[in-house]
């Protein structure tokens, strides 16, 4: 084994040296010059675009309102907005339909500054009451157990007839028993009924304190859990607090507890919650968790504070929506490019209330609103019609659009893509209009097509890539097979991966998600020396790989295990020695030429741009499907609600899948035998 490792290492060194030679040859030097020339051209083009944007922005500053929707802006925006002018171009393109002024933002900030501590105080008060209620409930439960034990003892003495009743719980218990005997499992349901209409939580003096605690306490917990009914919770707690004060007689500890409960109750009574104001608590949680790798938004940093102010101000602006997770990424993306805070807020708020984004964040109560679900389903159907292979694959893997497209569109890609790519995509969306987030979703899906369609990539990897495409940045091999230089890095890179795997039946695993093996098209461009020599060693390489894999086993030879994918071919192929081959030169040139456009990188902005045209997106079709699906989803929701009311019935069947509908007929054998309509894409 170790001999093989040594051989592999030696081989890798040779390849690296050959590679170096290839780099020194004159053709390659010419390619480097060509690369420089292109870079220079790109620089000039950028400068020109900057000047053009400056001109547009100046016109807009001077009051020309037609600029944002002008053909000129659109054309310019299609090629991406230069970083330098983005901070001013975005607010212009987003517009300010809401007429948010600096003063307005300042007022909102003041309001937020007052509201935040109140909400925190309220949450603490709720916790105090919940803990107290829990305590009371436990005391009551203990008492109930004691009572029940006493009762059982009594019935045992009296005769066997009482046994059944005692074990069946309160419903079967003799009516004369005090309600305090209710064992815990029955208590919540009973208490909920009494606490939901505030007035009905009657607390007549005749009821012994312990039993009242039993009925009130779980009710408070239940109502608190169903957050939309704070009134009920408050009412339940109210009775509780009074009782606590009443029963707190002598014990100083109890008196202190009662005082705290009363105080908490007072806070609850005097701090009303409007809409989703309580979501400020989630803002605190999420600000440091927004783009943590950039560390711009750490607690206490200027950017972090600005982000917090923007989000809490938005809660004050639209308390009905409040803060919804995902918004922080949108606001942070704005803030990263628009340095002026008030302007950033205005851009963020206007963006949030654009129809497409507005509906993506639901209608306030929850995110499962009919419109957005219909959108997701319609999206899947358009993909099924235009990119049937991908749709079919996702159907086979059982990956629904709600698993990934929801997060893509809701955060306008900011959560799932590298920030610089998000910015490029925003440039385009902002100049093109509202249906564009969906079109970009389709394009991004198309761009990820090589990975999705790769039969070696399994459910886990596909869903991981779809839910978080930026992970491809950490997995260049999966994304493209882009290797810096020579075979050695291939070795070490995949070695590190496989050696951690240590699976016991590696050799028989046919369909494993081979992260280190690039997808087909990427492989062709993967300009490692091995692939350049590929053709003559093909069959042998496969044989070598399987042998290698069998032998590798669990031994510590990380490099050899890694060989399962690339290296063994190197070990058994004819050695190119130190003279670079024509193919190697070719590969080196190719790599240099491709270095800028990143042709096969699924997350390359230009590639996604091309996919925008090729993904065959059809707005009219999308709208038509949306209307259809909306009816379907609405009916389904109604049926679901009805079946919930009749608990005896079996569960309502789910809506049919969407990836296959519409192409169900087309994707049958006929489709499989001849190349699919869009197979030229891949």
């Amino acid at each position, binding site marked *: 084994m170790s001999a093989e490792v040594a051989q592999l290492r030696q081989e890798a060194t040779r390849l690296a040296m050959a590679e170096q030679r290839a780099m020194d040859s004159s053709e390659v030097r010419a390619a480097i010059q060509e690369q420089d020339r292109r870079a220079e051209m790109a620089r000039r083009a950028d400068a020109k675009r900057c000047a053009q944007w400056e001109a547009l922005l100046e016109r807009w500053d001077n009051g020309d309102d037609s600029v944002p929707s002008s053909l000129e802006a659109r054309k310019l925006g299609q090629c991406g907005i230069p970083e330098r002018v983005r901070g001013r171009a975005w607010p212009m393109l987003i517009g300010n339909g809401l007429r948010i002024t600096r003063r307005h933002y300042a007022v909102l900030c003041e309001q937020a500054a007052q509201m935040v501590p109140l909400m925190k105080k309220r949450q603490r008060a709720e916790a105090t009451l919940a803990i107290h209620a829990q305590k009371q409930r436990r005391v009551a439960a203990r008492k109930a157990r004691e009572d029940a034990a006493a009762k059982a003892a009594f019935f045992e003495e009296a005769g066997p007839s009482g046994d059944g009743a005692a074990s069946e719980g309160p419903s079967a218990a003799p009516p004369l028993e005090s309600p305090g005997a209710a064992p815990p499992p029955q208590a919540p349901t009973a208490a909920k009924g009494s606490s939901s209409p505030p007035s009905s939580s009657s607390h007549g003096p005749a009821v012994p304190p312990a039993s009242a605690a039993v009925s009130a306490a779980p009710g408070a917990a239940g109502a608190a859990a169903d957050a939309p009914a704070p009134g009920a919770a408050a009412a339940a707690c109210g009775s509780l607090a009074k009782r606590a004060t009443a029963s707190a007689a002598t014990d100083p500890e109890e008196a202190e507890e009662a005082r705290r409960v009363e105080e908490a109750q007072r806070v609850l009574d005097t701090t009303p919650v409007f809409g989703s104001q309580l979501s400020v608590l989630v803002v605190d949680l999420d600000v440091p968790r927004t783009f*943590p790798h950039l560390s711009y938004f750490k607690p206490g940093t200027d950017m972090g504070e600005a982000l917090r102010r923007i989000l809490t101000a938005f809660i004050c602006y639209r308390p009905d929506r409040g803060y919804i997770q995902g918004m922080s990424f949108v606001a942070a993306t704005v803030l990263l490019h628009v340095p002026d805070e008030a302007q950033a807020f205005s851009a963020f708020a206007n963006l949030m209330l654009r129809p497409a984004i507005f509906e993506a964040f639901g209608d306030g109560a*929850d995110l499962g609103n009919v419109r957005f679900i219909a959108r997701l389903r319609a999206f899947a159907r358009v993909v099924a019609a235009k990119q049937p292979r991908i749709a079919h694959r996702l159907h086979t893997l059982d990956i629904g659009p*709600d698993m990934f497209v929801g997060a893509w569109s809701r955060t306008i890609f900011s*959560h799932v893509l590298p920030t610089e790519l998000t910015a490029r995509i925003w440039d385009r969306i902002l100049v093109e209009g509202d249906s564009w987030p969906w079109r970009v979703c389709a394009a991004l899906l198309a761009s990820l097509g090589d990975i999705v369609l790769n039969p070696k990539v399994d459910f886990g990897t596909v*869903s*991981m890539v779809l839910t978080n495409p930026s*992970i491809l940045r*950490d997995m260049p091999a999966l994304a493209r097979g882009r290797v810096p230089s020579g075979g050695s890095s291939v070795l070490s890179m995949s070695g590190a991966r496989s050696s*951690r*795997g240590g699976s016991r039946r590696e050799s028989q695993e046919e369909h494993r998600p081979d992260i280190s093996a690039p997808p087909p098209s990427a492989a062709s461009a993967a300009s490692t020396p091995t692939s350049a020599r590929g053709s003559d060693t093909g069959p042998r390489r496969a044989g070598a790989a399987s042998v290698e894999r069998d032998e590798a086993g669990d031994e510590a030879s990380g490099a050899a295990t890694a060989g399962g994918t690339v290296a063994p071919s190197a070990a058994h192929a004819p050695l190119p020695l130190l003279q670079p081959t024509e193919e190697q030169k070719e590969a080196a040139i190719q790599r240099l030429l491709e270095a800028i456009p990143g042709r096969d990188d699924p997350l390359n902005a230009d590639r996604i741009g091309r996919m925008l045209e090729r993904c065959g997106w059809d707005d009219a079709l999308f709208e038509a499907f949306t209307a259809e699906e909306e009816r379907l989803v609405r009916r389904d929701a109604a049926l679901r609600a009805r079946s919930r009311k009749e608990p005896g019935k079996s569960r309502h069947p789910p809506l049919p899948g969407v990836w296959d509908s519409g192409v169900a007929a087309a994707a049958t054998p006929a489709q499989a035998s001849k190349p699919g309509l869009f197979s030229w894409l891949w």
Partner: protein
Amino acid sequence: MAAASSSVDDAYDYLFKLVLIGDSGVGKTNLLSQFARSEFNLASKATIGVEFAWKNVTIEGDVIKAQIWDTAGQERYRAITNAYYRGAVGALLVYDIAKRVTFDHVEAWLKEVREHADSKIVVMLVGNKSDLSQLRQVSTDEAQELAKREGLAFIETSALTKSGVDTTFSRILEEIHRIVKEQELDRGDDDAAAVVADGEAVVVDDDKADAKAPSGGCCK
């Protein structure tokens, strides 16, 4: 999640889908990263959609591929998680022992699980952040009581110190494994072998065995 790379090349006897649920910020993502790749990140990225990780675990000689789903915790995200629960055989219901409100919401989460998931799903109550004992707002007894009342397994963990993390996952996986084994005995081993060969999720509920086939959630 970069988790996958640690166990991409795997063969397994069973695939168990677990879901992580619980309020925002209780540490679901860190529990997962601690389990899957022994990582803890004080400032991990907020989870918005659904994220995954998986890890192979050996139980009684069987290789179990635990596929764990992690999602956003905010209340409003609850309604869009149909696909999330589909095929799940276990759920870890996480709360933060230092934040009362997350425990008060446990019952609402349970309701959610029982409504959307398979009726025989194994649920485990997990009190996370046990390292913050000086800030504790939820006593162990209290949580234990709730778990007993609702028929859940219960454990306290710290994703920060990794205490209890492996136990959590191995306990729930062992429990599921036990149920599945029992079920296999009931219906004969042939079926089970077929299920495993397909690499499909093993569904705990016999009646719902057809759930293996793509059956469609709300927007599949």
